[in-house]
């Protein structure tokens, strides 16, 4: 039996208390324990970015973070962007610019793009490309994703 540990943290603005296996990653906690499935498993080793979340305002791969390390932190997932006007603009831009095809990379891509915009990056196409280089997409060829982010950041396209 795995060792369990109680943690308390802020998830999408709401304080949560959960008991998690000490060996569990944050991705598995979000999906399997808490039931928020917007964060996706793509590779489990930090290479694809499909599981991107924000912790204390910084984007990271939830597959590489132990669930217990969420204790006391402020965690935001794609679901947490639902009532955020800045994120609304980003989501709409992804839709309007055709940045979504199969959509599997999209939540992680939007979490990363949201982080870029909040940290003042993304003022030009080059910094957007560098900013999302850790997020793989197999459908779109990235161009429309870059265009979508640029339309919100005001970067010349």
């Amino acid at each position, binding site marked *: 039996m*795995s060792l369990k540990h109680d943690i308390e943290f802020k998830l999408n603005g709401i304080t949560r208390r959960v008991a998690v296996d000490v060996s569990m990653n944050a991705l598995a906690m979000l*999906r399997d324990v808490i039931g*928020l*499935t*917007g*964060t*996706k*498993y*793509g*590779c*489990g*080793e930090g*290479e*694809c970015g*499909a599981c991107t979340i924000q912790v204390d305002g910084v984007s990271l791969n939830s597959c590489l973070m132990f669930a217990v390390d969420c204790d006391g932190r402020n965690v935001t*997932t*794609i*679901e947490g*962007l*639902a009532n955020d006007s800045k994120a609304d603009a980003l*989501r709409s831009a*992804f*839709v*309007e*610019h*055709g940045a*979504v*095809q*199969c*959509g*599997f*990379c*999209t*939540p992680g891509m*939007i979490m990363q793009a949201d982080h870029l915009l909040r940290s003042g990056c993304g003022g030009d196409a*080059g910094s*957007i*490309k*560098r900013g*999302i*280089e*850790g*997020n*793989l*997409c*197999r*459908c*779109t*060829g*990235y*161009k*429309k*994703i*870059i265009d979508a982010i640029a339309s919100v950041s005001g970067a010349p396209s």
Partner: protein
Amino acid sequence: MNVAEKKARVIEPDTLIGKRIPKMDAPEKASGKTRYIHDINLSGQLHGKILRSDRIHALIKSIDTSAAKALPGVHAVITAADIPDQRPIGVAKDHFPLKVGRVRSERDEIAAVAAESEEIAEAALKLIKVEYEDLPVISNPEDAIKPDAILIHPEPHGADGSHEHLKQGMSIAHKGKPDNIAMRFDYVHGDVIQGEAESDVVIEDTFKLHYVTHCCMGVSGMIAEFDSSGNLLMYSNTQVPFLHKREFAEYLNMDPARIRIIQPPIGGGFGSKLDIYPFEVICLYLARAAKRPVKMLFTREEEFLASPTRQPVLLTLRSGCKKDGTLTFRQVHTLHDNGAYTSWGATTPFVMMQTFSSLYRVPHCDYHTAAVYTNNPYAGSFRGYGNLQATFAIEQHMDMLAEKIGMDPLEFRLKNAQDAGETTGQGMSFKSCGFKDCINTAAQRSDYARKVQENVANRNAAGNIKRGVGMASMLHVGGGAKIYPSDGCGTILKMDDFANITLITGASEIGQGSETVLSQLVCEELGLPISAVTVVNNDTAITPWDVGVHASRTTFIAGNSAIGAAKKAKAKILAVAATKYECAESDLDLRGGFVIKAANGEAVVELSKLLRNLHFQDKAELVMTTFYYEPPSVHQDKGFKGDVSAAYAWGTQVVEVEVDTDTGIVKMTKVTGAHDVGRVLNRLGIEGQIEGGVIMGQGYALTEDLMIENGVMKNPNFRDYKLVTAPEIPEMDISFIESMDGEGPQGAKGVGEAPSICIAAATANAIFNATGVRIYELPFTPERVYRALRGQTPKLYWKPWKAN
């Protein structure tokens, strides 16, 4: 009320065709609300895991599952011995889901567990003990055809899954193979000997194409549940639900009518979900054994190891032309690495031979393929279906022949390019054909002719960065492909009291945007906004038959089917309105949610009101229609001849590169593409298809390489299997040639596969243009390019080979 207000409202004409219509399911996907198969959990569900071989080629001497069965939380442990009714699966029915007696590749399935959690299932796998006796490994297809090669499939398989029963006179499902040849294809038109005699120039080269894989962002998965009456409900990622329903029934020895397949949104397809793979059948066995729903998901490593690949090809092409630039013949021999088993990869010659026989006018063509068994991963279907490999060779030869006769490569291509109305030696009839427009447009927009000259002149200039430009064109089916008994698609259309449409289509959605395009086509007929449509496309219990998502067929086939259903609905509505308003049907039309006067657009009645009137009356009626569209294409004859598609798509891509001669790094700077798509239906969607395909082609050309050494996959992860990332993408300039196909929906042709086909070929030509060095093998990694630039690469030569 003044006079002006009494005037009838005029509805201005509008169209959805060619507009930038956002994908209908994008808002859900962008907010993380879409439930993929990974996100679905059924109550009482168990988790399935598979034990794979840790040998490449070996006899299984014994399997001990007793410790795994004893582990708390384990509900079922199965091996081949537990499934006496196993039947061989795959395109050639040459392997069992759970391997019997022998493993033939690294990924081979030996046992499977269903347990309360994934962790318990994984722990149980570790408790299964397998004893092997190693056999020699064939990892190189050239070794597989040597006379003394060990046979990969020597023994017959019984239809019941065990060899022992064969002795008791049971039926044989797979006879085994007396050699390692899985499939052969031989095609000929004209007479290549005559063609060669008429040639002023003849060249022959060997090309080598590598392993790549789909890398769908959503890993493979399945959920299976039998109800208490024995009916099977599957949540599956298949691209071909109706074909698979029948096949799964065969493997389970049950009535296909009792199988229902629901397709949750799919995290990428690209051809990978066109065949049934062992994990799917094993998941069914586990659900049957455990009498509980079983969910099985791959890890990313499993996705690399156990999902299909694009087929590696060794190819020798001999081709010729006259001094005036007329192509004379093509003679082609290819050796395909089939891997250990046969999936659709073995049948890519169907498409390859079309390109060899019919891309440009080829009077004489001779094509031979052998797909051979090895102990490597087995190859499936992948966007482009052999066409990337064929085009890689052909378009390099086009440049090389042009250079030999001293002709401009653009002029040489245009001289041999076909026009509408031509029929090829293989019987493909080009009713619409924008081939020359594609070549000219791509050349002009990229300034190809000037850059070709300029780059050659700069080859010996100072500096380590050399610029190159290369061109390649492609031909692909664009109006379905009549491979199965029917290439059709069904539609059911119903309208409610508020003039909303439920469009029930057989066409599967795999991220390509079919639901949006089909809705546009229906709205165009019925004069309604796209928001009026709800699409149902993912449940075999509801949707009408469709052959599946393949061959770039959905817009064309399902589109024509949707239009057919919409036209029937429109005819019914107009007939009702004509009676009610005492005029001819031809005086009326539908526009903007109204029945209007066709002559001046004046609104006659709101469509929803008319539908309610029809519904709530004594002879009540609803508007519900059905349509089944079968394209006017034909099956090929035994010699592979025939007009297999109702339309053909064309495209030309010009690739520009910078080659760093110090490091061998090739940077793709720009792709200029011109595609004959018939007509643009959804500009946003079609740009997305092209851009995504171009970058997939870039990966094939430059970075992606599934490395197999002695049967072992060396890089089953995203760190070492290098997908293209955002900073590496080239500038893209995409043009659409609208040839308005007469059979296509609103004139459109298929485009899904087209954009990835030419990139590697054009890149090869661009590297040559930059450096004067031709590289015959993919991918163009820094090491390969570096060595080639220094003359360290021996010239590839594979002697065309024929078995007796």
